[in-house]
């Protein structure tokens, strides 16, 4: 309802955002749930101005467990989700591309990596390739700057951010660092519609030839164990302390001199910039 009122009040600036959602998996319990990144992507879409949001899911929706997960997305305040029904273990990309072409979306938002299955993160790239659109990874904020231009805030490691500018249409994948998604309300989830649409499914042959097992714990690398030729060397490598053995100590200098030494170290480490 909210979506439509906005849509009609300002038709000139309107654009369509398509969000792709999948059935996630809780990382500890393995239970189906709203995928974390997908719901963050949906949250991003819902917070954009003057847009209409279409939520698309491709997959085997006959399973009641999966349906209940889709209803969790509906519970974020949606009226409906487009479900393009696919057989289990099929490649969802062709169906999604076909659906997006029909929809004529301007912006496609996805998660960065699926929580179940292979989770290679290939889907947004394949869609962008098929549609011939640019693909922007790790978005945390998307804002329309007018004239079909969008500004995207991208998450870099260590909490840093970078601003990118791109023209619609484009595909963006959303990073886990994006704002938390809103809670889902059970009642509105039940009220929303799962609108099914049949698009032929393509079996994923590669995934049927692999072996999938529960994740094994990765062996820890033992420091330079390979290089150590004698028992004494191996013992040393295993027990060596990594902590540094004490550095320079300044005692007698004046406070200004001490500050200067700290300042020089900070500049040489690049954590503060010197302007002059």
């Amino acid at each position: 309802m909210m979506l439509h009122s906005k849509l009609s009040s300002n038709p000139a600036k309107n654009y369509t955002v398509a969000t792709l959602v999948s059935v996630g998996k809780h990382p500890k319990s393995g239970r189906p749930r709203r995928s974390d990144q997908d719901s963050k992507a949906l949250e991003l879409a819902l917070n954009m101005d003057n847009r209409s949001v279409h939520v698309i899911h491709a997959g085997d929706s006959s399973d009641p467990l999966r349906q209940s997960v889709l209803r969790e997305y509906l519970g974020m305040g949606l009226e409906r989700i487009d479900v393009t029904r696919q057989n289990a273990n099929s490649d969802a990309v062709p169906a999604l591309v076909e659906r997006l072409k029909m929809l004529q979306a301007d912006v496609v938002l996805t998660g960065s990596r699926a929580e179940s299955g292979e989770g290679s993160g290939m889907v947004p790239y394949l869609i962008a390739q098929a549609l011939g659109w640019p693909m922007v990874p790790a978005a945390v904020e998307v804002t329309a700057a007018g004239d079909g231009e969008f500004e995207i805030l991208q998450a870099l490691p260590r909490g840093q951010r970078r601003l990118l500018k791109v023209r619609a249409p484009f595909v963006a994948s959303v990073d886990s660092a994006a704002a938390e998604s809103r809670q889902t309300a059970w009642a509105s989830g039940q009220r929303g519609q799962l609108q099914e649409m049949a698009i032929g499914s393509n079996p994923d042959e590669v995934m049927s030839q692999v072996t999938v097992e529960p994740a094994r714990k990765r062996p820890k690398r033992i420091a330079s164990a390979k290089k150590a030729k004698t028992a004494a060397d191996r013992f040393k490598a295993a027990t060596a302390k990594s902590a540094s053995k004490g550095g320079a100590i300044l005692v007698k200098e004046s406070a200004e001199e001490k500050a200067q030494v700290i300042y020089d170290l900070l500049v040489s480490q690049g954590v503060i910039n010197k302007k002059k």
Partner: protein
Amino acid sequence: MSDLIRKDPRKDWILRNRLHPLHEQVAAEMNGPAAEVRGPSGLIRRNPHAVGFIGPNGIKRIDRLGGSAAAAAGAKREQKEEQLPIIAIDAPQAYVAVVVDMPNGELSAHDKDVLGQARALADAAEDTAVLAVVFGPVKAALGTEANPDHPLGLAGVDRVVVFDSEAYQGFAPEQQLEAMLAVERTLEPAQWLFPDTHLSGNDRALRLAARLGERPIMHAWQIKNGKVTSRGGSELTDITRELASARILALASECAMPVDEARYEARVIASPAVPDVLTRIKDAGAVAVDPNQISLGEAEFILSAGNGIHDWDQFHEAARVLGATEGASRVAVDDGFMPRFRQVGATGTWVTARVYIAVGISGAVQHLQGIGSCEKVIAINTDAGCDMVKRADLSVIGDSQEILAALMAKVQADGAADGDEGKHDVA
């Protein structure tokens, strides 16, 4: 004289045989003057004070190894620096390409692991060379001559292609993809390996795979017996498939041991011509982030307060001026001066900051555990004997209030970064 330890088997044998007529003589030779003498009653008497010898640091040492250690104890054996052999592949028939991250122009540990894996794959095939594809400048100069002592040569690289023009700087995935496609056309690598890193290796691998219509193997962590094992979504599953089924692989860190037994040529080859692409994604640069919005575990630069802070307004001001994320010791938190989520240490956050300034923190083990992976630690403390000073790379002894004031004055005078505007580019 050779400093190799030579054993005299005859002497060893005499030493073991107490009834040998020469036993005492030999034992004395090994362990100093008569440790064992026959007393007047005919019994053997042992003189414990005569056993052993005085070591180089003045401590008595008892040698139970029959003299072989005594020889080594005198002078530390001088170690000959072994030159690693150079392995050259003169006419490579095929390539394993590795697109290295090289943040700041230097190989990361992850890069070296991936190069180690590439080396293993190349060595398993005939006449195959490891090709490093580098975007951006390389710190140590490279040349078209063989350069085995270059970090790339030591890491196992035979050939290098460098793309370092302006167009590849910053976030330029489209131009970089075009360069990878040019390498693909001219050199046709048998495999493409990438470090599986956020926004660099991972993004490049996916772009290349999507463009070439290849199915990549992402998040791979083991290649063994022609099979690749990778982590599935949510890190809950291991997916194993044939190595031959994919040409593009993104590898996790510690996927293989880095090269350490030979040097390779690291010879730059002419980079193929790359058409300029229309950049549709424009990089508008780094955005200033409020350092206190960055989660403590991720922050790069932390100013941490302990019980030695008496002027808290000044501390917050210092953090703002320096542009540092605030941290605290448990005492500062328990006393109510800092919120709980700022606590660093065993029961707080394990931080990974590159630079950590500990102001008035004594360095209890519980605190030191939390800063184990910090690269540079600076201590400001009145007590020169405290544990934080032992851990720190730079310690400044003095009153925290005075030193913070001087440091702030210094930063402001130099017009250096203020918390709100100055942000380093992390590209």
